[in-house]
């Protein structure tokens, strides 16, 4: 080996080393930023849980992140069955039931109709189908304030004012745009040849739907169900505008509970109530979120 070669080899080694050091520094930076934001994102829910487990004197002495000395679920028990919401002191359990009675039929109906709409719009195309899709789609963007007044009077005329059935109807109407969008974008990717082959084999409208499209639709059904479940469970505007008293869904009751406490505010109870409202959608998200993100990504960004 000549001298010159040794020198270049040395230089190379040094360059590789500094490049390596640079790479490690970059990695550290990347993870530091990611971990920092992870803490920032987790902190609010972490402190919600801690606070719900504390007693009021403990809350007054400690701070947001101080661990509870004697963790207790008393606050949960209280808001579940005893806390007063406006004048009724029966806790949130009735409202939890209301929310389920509202969300289950509303999700089933809006997802079923959305699936059929998507099927017709992609596989039984007709004149102006794209325009009709656009007209449906626009419904997913309207600020709901624009329909509140007529809807309030319409529900009254249908004798559904203040009822859970009324809320189901409202959520079906304004969920259709989303469910139609999901299924339409999914079915568009199913090759038309499969449908044509089925038609040639004598399968009709319903047969083709049940035997050919439904069996391959599970990913998008998951997306539509999760989207509708979280959207309807979390709704506040329709709940507060169209129901009162006993029929209020959980989000409305939570807001009333937190904002109508008289005397000293029981922060532990507020946080316990917020957790009860958050748990169903968080559970859905943790167990099924993977499918949702996958489907969401496929549907929302082309290319």
């Amino acid at each position, binding site marked *: 080996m000549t001298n010159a070669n040794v020198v270049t080899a040395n230089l190379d080694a040094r360059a590789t080393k500094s490049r390596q050091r640079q790479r490690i520094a970059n990695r550290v930076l*990347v*993870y530091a930023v*990611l971990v920092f*934001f*992870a803490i920032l994102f*987790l*902190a*609010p*829910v972490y*402190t919600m849980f801690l*606070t719900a487990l504390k007693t009021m004197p403990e809350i*007054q002495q400690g*701070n*947001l992140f*101080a661990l509870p000395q004697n963790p207790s679920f008393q606050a949960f028990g209280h808001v579940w069955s005893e806390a007063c919401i406006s004048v009724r002191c029966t806790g949130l359990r009735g409202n939890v039931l209301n929310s389920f009675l509202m969300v289950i039929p509303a999700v089933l109906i809006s997802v079923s109709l*959305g699936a059929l*709409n998507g099927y*017709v719009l992609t596989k039984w195309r007709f004149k102006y189908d*794209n325009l009709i899709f*656009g*007209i449906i*789609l*626009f*419904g997913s*963007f*309207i*600020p709901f*304030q*624009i*329909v*509140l*007044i*007529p809807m309030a*009077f*319409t529900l009254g005329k249908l004798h559904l004012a203040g009822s859970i059935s009324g809320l189901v109807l409202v959520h079906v109407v*304004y969920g*259709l745009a989303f469910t139609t969008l999901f299924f339409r974008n999914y079915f*568009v990717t199913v090759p038309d040849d499969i449908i044509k082959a089925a038609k040639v084999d004598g399968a009709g*409208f319903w047969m083709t739907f049940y035997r050919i499209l439904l069996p391959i639709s599970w990913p998008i059904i998951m997306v539509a169900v999760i989207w509708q479940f979280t959207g309807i469970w*979390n709704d*506040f*505007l329709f709940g507060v*505008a169209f129901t009162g008293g006993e029929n209020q869904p959980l*989000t409305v009751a*939570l*807001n009333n509970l*937190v904002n109508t406490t008289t005397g000293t505010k029981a922060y532990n109870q507020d*946080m316990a109530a*917020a957790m009860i409202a*958050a748990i169903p959608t*968080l559970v859905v*998200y*943790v167990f099924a*979120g*993977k499918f949702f993100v996958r489907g969401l*990504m496929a549907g*929302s*960004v*082309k*290319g």
Partner: protein
Amino acid sequence: MSIAKRLRGSLPLFVMAPSLTLIGVGVYGFIATTFVLSLTSSRMFPKFDFVGFDQYVRLFSNDRWHIAVHNMVIFGGLYMVLGTLLGLLLAIFIDQRIRAEGFFRTVYLYPMALSFVVTGVIWQWMLNPSLGIEKLLHDWGFVEAKFRWLVDPEWAIYTVVIAGVWQVTGFVMAIFLAGLRGVDTEILKAARVDGASPWKTYTRIIIPALRPAFMTVLVVEGNLAIKSYDLVIALTKGGPGISTELPSTFMYSTTFNRNDLALGASSAVIMLMTVAAIVIPYLYMELKDDKR
């Protein structure tokens, strides 16, 4: 054509008829009704005496509405800018072939699963002037620290921004991440061969390639911002005073609490037109190049 055949031919339209009826009435019919109401002098109940655009004149000379619009500009602007920047940053960092990608994605995205009411209640507690973040800073040794935005009329609107950005960032990240994964790897390889620095690769190639994702993000954020109602109600109730009033809270309280139906309707029409100005061009573009 036989009757049976013709019936079968129109079956698809029959199938869509219930949905189209519900949307026709519930979306377009109700929009028309609200617009008509905004041209009347209805108070507690609809009454159809046309007064032209008087309600809009009243609306735009209403101080409360001015505050609401002003707040909308601050909240909407910061919400969109911060949400987009943070979401993009997180997406780029997550896209660096890191370990535990699934964990970080889950953590950033979970706030989107929460109700705005829950988010508002949690942040009301975090921002509590005596027991919240201020107390935390005191306990950590910053005894002089003051953090009372929630009860300060000048600053309260920024608490809505904090909570809103916290909730939306993960969603923005997910959209950008999908966009990043879709960038043509051949172009990236070519850039590396040409010796382009990572900074240049991002600013010159990758971010411009994310244009469709930016469009989606901005439309979704703008739409969420204008609709925002629950978050403000749960976090500040529009207060202190009316310092965090937004068009959505203005519309609701004007219509249902102050029994000024026509004025409420006119504010809803303005809200709809703002959303339409953002959304219709977007939908048009999306559907135009969607003819597969």
